[in-house]
């Protein structure tokens, strides 16, 4: 299992469209993927679960990935956060 802390840097945080992009990405992997914020752990393949974290800009979350493709999954997920969900800011 891989666990990584990620800071949300895009202006709008994990809002609806960003959460949708995240689930579209996580659903490509067979690994189990979870996001944890303030001890709340949700399935990163379910958009409504992610939205319930209400994670705004500046929040720190933890990503947990476990499965055969965990290395590639965590790499791509981190990239999506670092690229501001392709929102430019």
């Amino acid at each position, binding site marked *: 299992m891989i666990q990584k802390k990620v800071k949300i840097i895009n202006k709008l945080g994990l809002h609806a469209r960003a959460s949708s*992009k995240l689930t579209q990405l996580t659903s490509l992997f067979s690994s189990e993927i979870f996001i944890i914020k303030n001890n709340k752990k949700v399935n990163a393949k379910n*958009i*409504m679960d992610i939205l319930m974290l209400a994670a705004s800009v500046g929040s720190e979350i933890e990503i947990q990935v476990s499965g055969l493709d965990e290395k590639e999954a965590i790499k791509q997920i981190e990239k999506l956060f670092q690229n501001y969900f392709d929102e430019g800011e």
Partner: protein
Amino acid sequence: MIGILLVTHGEIGKSLIDCSSNILGKSINLLECIPVGPKSDLKECKKLIENKIKNLDVGSGVLIITDIYGATPSNILNQYTTQNNIVVITGLNLPMLIQAITDRDGTLSETSKACMQSAEDGIIQMNSK
């Protein structure tokens, strides 16, 4: 894939479909809506519902969602609740619809339960006091 039919007061259904499509970044298959208004002909509505059910059921059944329990749309839908390929739920909101769209490869029963849970989970008083 489960088909989804929204039967709502006025254009609520269409508007929620537009919002979901915008959030999910794509047009959505097997999702339709029927608006019901004060001047709607109930016989016409039933015909429309039956046609849409036929189109939307590709083998996994149809989840029909309406807004207010006890109002005309839900009263019309009451007659479809005994069919095995149909589940009717009320309390339509955006979390419920997004859940339905993104989680409909399982059984009709699983999807409808998840939708009701998402709708309920999305109702939160945000003030801390």
